[in-house]
């Protein structure tokens, strides 16, 4: 076992983690731990852009952006947080540009902007050009730019370190404060205890609970899982975004930017069906609405293809030059993975599990909440792992890249400033005991279950029962499937018993987090007997503001059960109204 001491430890080196590191490392001694290499993080897969009301190409302002974010989130957005994000958006974009991010440009040489789903002029009048972009690889450019600046600034990284436990220590008043993390080093199998004054969680999402997903294999919710096992709450876990345009059968993301550039969704009859579901902004309606509309077309027999199980994204009317300069990567994905030529053929698409709106609850200073009102001193979270909540029940496209930059920055500053004032807390007795036990149990297991089998069954039941449409019946079936899988997981065994690069072991540990989080998602979803944003209940099809305009707070009981509570939504200027587009 190795011991390390830092002022600030940041867990995760995607957009949020590295944005935090750029702030924190200049102020306090900072270590960044990532289970990958920084440039492998899934921020790099984001495509379409990052919205900010720069008004470089047409009139716009941050208040319209805030309204769109609140309405897009179906009024479950904490409006104070959305105001912060949309107000700070311009600086977030300009900071990236000055760090070197190569945005596409207007004829005047300014950052170019384009349309994106749910982003409108003057409270819903018409789509507005708000998304700042670099072709269809904006996330790649953000990730590279942040990493480049981390290199410039000499940020200290620990690559391929898996953080598997969070350390909490009671302070003089008996309040538990963050005191560090415990990590497993992939290369050596060694366990490292990092003692720190503050900890920033920036570990991303858990899309791998689903089979069809745009998420990387590594998005297994470790950060949320670690927090959950500490008895800290998770917020709004039932809200998972299904991105409308995943490559059919594969789930690989095709950016909404395609529709922003003018692509059209059609059913098997060639009909532009979004005209029926969102007459004003049609194909540029928010993702939850488009995903449901697509699933409904398929369900009602208007799907395309031999099994009528997908719809078509039609770019054939767009000029080749526009496709090549604005959408080069996604058209290459269609060619590579489906053998479809987007210049001349429509691309088969179907919704794919994409983004967790829920996560570790925080306030607008990125401090992690232990209850509806109290924070865990020294513990911060930002990005997809967190629920601040700027996305409410449905995130607008581009707002995740904005979220990681705005709240990553805030978390980095807050964690460093806290650390500068705080004493280094003691770490608990036997700090590595939990991780050592977790590892030893798997290495010594003589069980008969395989990680791959359990994971496949988990993903299958989640796709079948907890996807775009849900019912009490489907969710209760899913929950009993999950209970059975959890029991089988107790009997899981691995083939690799070594210390060196034991990815077999880590996959087994990650599966444990996935099982925990899937259960929180499903139990939270059963309890919300309404349809709102990304959570569509066929047995409760209307939004019910009277009973459910509040956040779900899930707590782990001592026996591992999921206990639910509520947290009020912060409303500042927008009262809920019917969500029409």
């Amino acid at each position, binding site marked *: 076992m190795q011991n390390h001491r830092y002022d600030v430890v940041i867990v995760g080196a995607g957009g949020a983690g590295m944005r935090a590191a750029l702030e924190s490392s200049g102020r306090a001694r900072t270590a960044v731990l990532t289970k*990958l*290499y920084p*440039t*492998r*993080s*899934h921020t*790099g*897969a984001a495509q379409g852009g990052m919205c900010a009301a720069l008004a470089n190409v047409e009139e716009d302002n941050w208040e319209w952006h805030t309204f769109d974010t609140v309405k897009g989130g179906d009024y479950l957005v904490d409006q104070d947080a959305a105001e912060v994000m949309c107000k700070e958006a311009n600086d977030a974009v*300009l900071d990236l*540009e*000055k*760090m*070197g991010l*190569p945005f*596409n*440009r*207007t004829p005047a*040489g*300014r*950052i170019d902007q384009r349309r994106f789903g749910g982003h409108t002029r003057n409270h819903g009048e018409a789509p507005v050009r708000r998304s700042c972009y*670099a*072709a269809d*690889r904006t996330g*790649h*450019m953000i990730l*590279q730019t942040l990493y*480049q*600046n981390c*290199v*410039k600034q000499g940020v200290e990284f620990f690559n391929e370190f898996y953080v598997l436990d969070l350390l909490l220590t009671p302070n003089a008043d008996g309040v538990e404060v963050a005191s560090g993390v415990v990590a497993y080093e992939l*290369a050596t199998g060694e366990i490292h205890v990092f003692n720190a004054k503050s900890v920033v969680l920036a570990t991303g999402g858990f899309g791998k609970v689903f089979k069809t997903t745009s998420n*990387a*294999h*590594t998005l297994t919710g470790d950060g949320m899982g670690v927090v959950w096992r500490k008895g800290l709450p998770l917020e709004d876990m039932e809200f998972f975004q299904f991105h409308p345009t995943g490559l059919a*059968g*594969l789930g*690989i993301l095709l950016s909404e930017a395609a529709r922003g550039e003018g692509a059209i969704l*059609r059913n098997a*009859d*060639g009909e532009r069906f979004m005209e029926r579901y969102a007459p004003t902004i049609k194909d540029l309606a928010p993702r939850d609405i488009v995903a449901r509309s697509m699933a409904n077309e398929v369900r009602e027999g208007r799907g*395309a*293809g*031999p099994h009528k199980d997908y719809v*078509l994204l*039609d770019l*054939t009317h767009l000029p080749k030059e526009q496709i090549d300069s604005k959408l080069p*990567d996604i058209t290459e*994905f269609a060619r*590579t*993975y*489906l053998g479809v030529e987007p210049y001349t*053929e*429509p691309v088969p698409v179907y919704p794919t599990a994409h983004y967790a709106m829920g996560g570790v609850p925080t306030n607008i200073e990125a401090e992690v909440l232990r209850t509806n009102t109290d924070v865990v001193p020294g513990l911060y979270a930002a990005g997809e792992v967190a629920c601040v909540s700027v996305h409410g029940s449905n995130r607008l496209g581009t707002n995740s890249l904005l979220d990681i930059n705005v709240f990553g920055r805030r978390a980095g500053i807050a964690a460093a400033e806290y650390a500068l004032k705080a004493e280094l807390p003691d770490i608990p007795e036997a700090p590595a005991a939990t991780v050592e036990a977790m590892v030893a149990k798997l290495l010594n297991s003589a069980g008969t279950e*395989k*990680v*791959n089998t359990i994971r496949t069954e988990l993903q299958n039941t989640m796709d079948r029962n907890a996807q775009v449409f849900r019912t009490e019946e489907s969710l209760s079936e899913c929950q009993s499937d999950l209970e059975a899988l959890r029991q089988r997981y107790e009997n899981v065994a691995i083939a690799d018993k*070594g210390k*060196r*690069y034991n990815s*077999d072991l880590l996959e087994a540990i990650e599966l444990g987090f996935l099982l925990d989080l899937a259960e929180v998602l499903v139990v939270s979803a059963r309890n919300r007997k309404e349809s709102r944003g990304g959570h569509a209940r066929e047995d409760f099809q209307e939004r019910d503001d009277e009973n459910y305009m509040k956040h779900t707070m899930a707590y782990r009981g001592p026996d591992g059960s999921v206990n639910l509570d509520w947290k009020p939504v912060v409303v500042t200027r927008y009262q809920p109204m019917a969500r029409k587009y």
Partner: protein
Amino acid sequence: MTAVQERSVSTPTEAPKSRPIEVKIRRYNPEISDEVTWVTYTVDAFPTDRVLNLLMKIKGEQDGTLTFRRSCAHGVCGSDAMRINGVNRLACKVLMKDMPDKLTIEPIKGLPVEKDLIVDMEPFFEAFRAVKPFLITHGNEPSKEWLQSQADRDRFDDTTKCILCAACTTSCPVFWTDGSYFGPAAIVNAHRFIFDSRDQGAEERLEILNDREGVWRCRTTFNCTEACPRGIQITKAIQEVKQALLFRRV
């Protein structure tokens, strides 16, 4: 509208069939033995399967000890560069419809092998960091963004696509024989800034690349360009850096 209907009808109606593939993999785990072994697995593959799917099937169903890196699985994270039938590829970008019934898979060459298909990436990232891969500016920053014409932006577009997978560098015969050569990926990333109109660090970077282990080692074999999963014209970029050095003009 009609055209769309006709096209959708043309989609194949028969489900594609799977076929058995022999996958021969170079295995090495110094924790157990210093010897390299070759192990052959047989696995069923559909035409739409990626080589990565086959590796995951082997690991998941036949041999959990097989070790390799992977993350995004669609060619943007750069984790799974490896030698597949003798050429450097991302395993997640090679479809089985384009491959024969036998695959030979090895780690990328020129970096120390740590275990099976995993190599030590540190020397690769060290070369990347050495070329100052970040925007260098002097003087006052603008209150808003730096202005840049789209034409100036297009000047370095190609080299912004790099995902640092190391497929290029580890396909380079010069790098194989002399690991201290910066290698194509580092030069690509220097190019990305040297030709950025906002950047003022070209001189510093060119000086670094003028080194004995710099661009002059390139023998223009085009292996790197052929290996790049992002389609970057790497040899062209290296030539542009050489010209900038010769004429001290970007």
